């Protein structure tokens, strides 16, 4: 009760402002980011699940045992079914009716379980999103098919023996790219109409996909169960298998959010520590007075700890509320990209994380200085200069750093990340501390020749040498963390954008005959389409490596791969090394080489443990070809360009039948070009990847904006640290400026010297921060994010500039009060 009253009195007196707002901020940041990360994750999972139209997919060449589906039923999973195959469809029953080879997809009523279909009532009209699928007796068509087959909505389409009503066009399906390629225009129908078509017979080339959605636990339980039943021809798919590029991007984004959150906590922790330290410094006198009035140490501690707990509870509630607001704000800003229609599952976890953060922050940062209060000697009422026998600084910092470390680890669950950040912070502490101290001591000599404002500033810097060194450490720490985050953010976003830049090939052409190559090249060129080189392709099977069968070797070198390595491969040849490929072992052949050699892709080489010099035997048609591996190439499969596991020198595969393939970029407005194209080259297969790429892009945009927002939030906490740190030195400055002004110094002089002092500190701090940020980024990218490190010259410019301006302004704003208060008033307060 008494503690509550004291707390209220302290609050009223303005003693608690920064301390309370630091705790509120720490809680708000952590809660806000966790809430947001949770929600983002849910959104992303939902969106990425739409790549499969489900959470998991079981792929099979034949119908699976009904028992399997019953088991999924028992786990409470939602289910849907897809049957897909290539088939001719007809515009009428007559013999001369137009026909077209299409890709038919028959779906059950619950399809899609995740994501939405984009459909329209007109051929190229505006589309709407829906989770409905074609009802029995109806069919939805790729808009391209209507003009191609001279059909309109309302007409009939014949699929095998079944006559179906064309009721809608389907512009996009969530899982269009889910299994790689779609050959031919889409025909979407109800699976219940399949028997009527009379097409699907035992042994026909069809693919069954069983879709499942539901709770993560149930899914993984069922996944385990199904894997126990599966034949080699079955595949159990999740997002990672279908879109490794996206999955990796998302994982990094998540790590970034966690890192940002951890840094946010760290920054807020520093602010709390600073505020608590200032609070206790101001309270040494209070404690001395209370003790002289007869309060025991235990009593004093009860009062202050009670105070702290109360403050923490209040700050916690306020912080949680702010965290919620922050999250809402994020969602508001992101709603253009973000599917907020689905109500998120709000869990308690973010709030618990926020509360624990507050608790740890208090224990690690606020408690040590407060504990040192109890050691205050009551004699202080008589002798103010009495030193306080509190905890040593080293111990205080030690407790603080361990607190942050623990929190970061708990928060991110990632030891490497925690260590990297802590090492960066520790390094900053040591390097910056030592450096700053020496530098600040050296300012004395320069000061002698400087003008008055400068002289005052330099003198003040020197006088507060140690204090300033500590302050520069904190400044540079804050700036460093901000730079660090900015650096990682830009390299993440850059990498994502590099992965799929504007103009990424979005259509693949396969099955191009040799005689078509020239006219194909001409057609693409006259339509001014950006095209990749046209590569020849020979189908062949890798059979032996150095007298060992591939199946046997694979079971030894990569047992998890089962027989996935024992399949047909596309073999190609090239005179020159493809643009994005990098030789990591051996050498590319010299021009005109006719030797029996091959260049192999790195991952496959690793899985089979193949090095240059190894001999490989291929079975092409019925002939055997033995070649030596002379180089190993690294390449990026996510770039949507033709890529090959095996490249041969030109000439070596000449005697085998080859088809050609390429990829090109078709702007979305020119989609009708495909109709013209297919009329001219009816036998060429077009694989349309444009909607998949669009989807990937939208996810990347979302995640990038989230990353930017989090960065903004962290900058706010960085600023708070700066302000708290400036405030920490305010008391002594008040006194000094009052004395100076009493002695006749003008306001401008005093203010000028303060601004110069802070800006110089900021400049120094910024420079040192650039150094340690660069170092930490190197560590993080090299060991955690596994990205290539590049030097960032801008950091060395922005860091010091940012530091000088920001801290100069912070100093000016907070210290203006110092200068504007009449000296009498200041002197009276002390």
């Amino acid at each position, binding site marked *: 009760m008494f503690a509550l009253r004291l707390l209220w*009195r302290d609050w009223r007196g303005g003693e608690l402002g920064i301390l309370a707002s630091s705790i509120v901020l720490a809680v708000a940041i952590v809660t806000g980011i966790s809430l947001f990360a949770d929600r983002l994750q849910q959104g992303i999972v939902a969106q990425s699940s739409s790549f499969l139209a489900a959470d998991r997919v079981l792929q099979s060449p034949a119908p699976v045992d009904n028992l399997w589906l019953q088991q999924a039923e028992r786990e409470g999973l939602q289910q849907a079914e897809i049957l897909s195959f290539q088939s001719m469809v007809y515009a009428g029953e007559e013999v001369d009716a137009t026909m077209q080879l299409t890709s038919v997809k028959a779906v059950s009523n619950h399809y899609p379980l995740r994501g939405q279909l984009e459909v329209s009532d007109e051929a190229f009209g505006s589309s709407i999103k829906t989770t409905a699928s074609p009802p029995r007796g109806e069919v939805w068509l790729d808009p391209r098919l209507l003009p191609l087959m001279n059909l309109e909505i309302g007409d009939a389409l014949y699929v095998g023996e079944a006559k179906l009503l064309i009721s809608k066009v389907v512009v996009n399906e969530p899982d269009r790219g889910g299994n790689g390629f779609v050959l031919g225009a889409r025909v979407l129908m109800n699976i219940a109409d399949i028997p009527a078509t009379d097409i699907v017979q035992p042994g026909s080339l069809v693919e069954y996909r069983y879709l499942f959605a539901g709770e993560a636990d149930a899914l993984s339980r069922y996944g385990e169960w199904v894997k126990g039943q599966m034949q080699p021809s079955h595949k159990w798919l999740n997002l990672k298998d279908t879109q490794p590029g996206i999955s990796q991007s998302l994982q990094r984004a998540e790590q970034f959010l966690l890192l940002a959150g951890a840094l946010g906590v760290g920054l807020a922790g520093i602010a709390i520590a600073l505020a608590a330290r200032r609070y206790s410094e101001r309270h040494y006198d209070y404690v001395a007075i209370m003790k002289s009035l*007869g309060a*025991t140490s235990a009593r004093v501690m009860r009062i202050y700890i009670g105070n702290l707990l109360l403050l923490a509870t209040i700050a916690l509630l306020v912080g949680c509320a702010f965290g919620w607001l922050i999250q809402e704000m994020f969602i508001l800003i992101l709603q253009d990209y973000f599917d907020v229609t689905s109500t998120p599952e709000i869990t308690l976890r973010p709030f618990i994380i926020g509360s624990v953060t507050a608790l740890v922050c208090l224990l690690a940062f606020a408690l040590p200085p407060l504990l040192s209060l109890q050691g205050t000697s009551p*004699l202080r009422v008589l002798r103010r200069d009495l030193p306080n026998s509190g905890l040593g600084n080293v111990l205080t910092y030690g407790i603080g750093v361990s607190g942050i470390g623990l929190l970061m680890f708990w928060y991110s669950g990632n030891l490497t990340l925690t260590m990297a950040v802590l090492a960066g912070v520790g390094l900053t502490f040591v390097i910056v501390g030592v450096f700053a101290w020496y530098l600040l001591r050296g300012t004395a000599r320069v000061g002698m020749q400087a003008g008055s404002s400068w002289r005052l500033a330099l003198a003040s810097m020197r006088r507060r040498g140690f204090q300033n060194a500590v302050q520069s450490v904190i400044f540079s720490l804050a700036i460093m963390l901000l730079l660090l985050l900015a650096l990682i953010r830009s390299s993440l976003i850059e990498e994502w954008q590099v992965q799929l830049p504007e103009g990424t090939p979005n259509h693949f052409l396969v099955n191009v005959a040799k005689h078509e190559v020239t006219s194909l090249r001409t057609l693409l060129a006259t339509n001014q389409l950006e095209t990749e080189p046209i590569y020849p392709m020979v189908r062949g099977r890798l059979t032996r490596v150095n007298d060992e069968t591939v199946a046997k070797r694979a079971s030894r070198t990569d047992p998890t791969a089962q027989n996935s390595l024992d399949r047909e491969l596309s073999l190609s040849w090239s005179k020159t090394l493809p643009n994005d490929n990098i030789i990591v072992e051996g050498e590319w052949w010299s021009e005109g080489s006719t030797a029996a050699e091959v260049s192999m892709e790195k991952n496959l080489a690793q899985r089979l443990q193949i090095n240059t010099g190894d001999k490989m035997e291929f079975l092409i048609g019925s002939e055997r070809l033995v070649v030596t591996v002379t180089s190993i190439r690294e390449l990026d499969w996510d770039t949507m360009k033709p890529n090959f596991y095996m490249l041969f020198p030109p000439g070596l595969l000449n005697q085998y039948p080859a088809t050609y393939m390429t990829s090109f970029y078709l702007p979305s407005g020119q989609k009708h070009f495909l109709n013209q194209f297919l009329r001219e080259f009816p036998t060429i297969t077009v694989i349309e990847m444009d909607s998949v790429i669009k989807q990937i892009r939208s996810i990347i945009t979302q995640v990038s904006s989230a990353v930017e927002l989090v960065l903004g939030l962290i900058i706010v906490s960085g600023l708070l640290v700066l302000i708290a740190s400036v405030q920490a030195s305010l008391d002594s400055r008040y006194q000094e400026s009052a004395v100076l002004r009493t002695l006749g110094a003008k306001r401008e002089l005093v203010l000028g010297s303060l601004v110069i002092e802070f800006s110089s500190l900021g400049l120094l701090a910024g420079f040192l921060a650039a150094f340690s940020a660069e170092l930490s980024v190197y560590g993080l990218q090299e060991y955690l994010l596994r990205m290539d490190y590049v030097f960032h010259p801008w950091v060395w410019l922005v860091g010091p500039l940012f530091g000088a301006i920001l801290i100069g302004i912070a100093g000016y704003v907070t210290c203006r009060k110092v200068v504007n208060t009449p000296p009498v008033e200041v002197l009276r*307060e002390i």
Partner: protein
Amino acid sequence: MINAQNIEKTVATSEGSLCILKGIDLEIKQGETLAIVGSSGSGKSTLLGLLAGLDVPGKGSITLAGRDITSLTEDERATVRADLVGFVFQSFQLLPSLTALENVMLPAELKGVAGARGLAEKYLQRVGLDHRFNHYPKQLSGGEQQRVALARAFASQPHILFADEPTGNLDTATGTQVIDLLFELNREEGATLVLVTHEQRLADRCQRSIQLEGGEIVADKRNKPSVVVSASGQN
């Protein structure tokens, strides 16, 4: 009431150890008013701190109302202070974040005594600040602040009141007012008063004054029963 025997105080400084008080013997009777005078640095404040139990001597013993405070821990001494002692300081030592009234309530609140508020209001009225209850220290003049400090000191109803240069930060007129008030209250409450000052005028108003020089008592004289004239008339 207070009995100090052969007390010595030595502090360690960067230039070696410094002996501030050298073998002080002092007995103060109940209800007595004692002034400690001496030049600056002679050890007055140090002695006061020791007598009040804010610090312990290096040697010797001090009994306060029959209890040997030199053998007590700091917390036990705090309890003794809470029960017996009141303070007035040169620099007032009010808590800046508390109002005048709250400052005066503080000792009672710390003791957990009921009716802290009524008591505080009574003493604030007694020192003539009934209209300044809710003002903060910085809104009060030095003299007013010291009067709040006086109210606080007496609100704890101490047996012994220690004052370290209570007028040191005040001009003569205000100082005299505060001192008049101090003596008046002291007479009403019947407390023992130990007062550090370097003003002879002030020392003369005490029944007894001792002089410290270089950490030793060089004079101990009993004043003639002083004529306590109401100060308000004089100034």
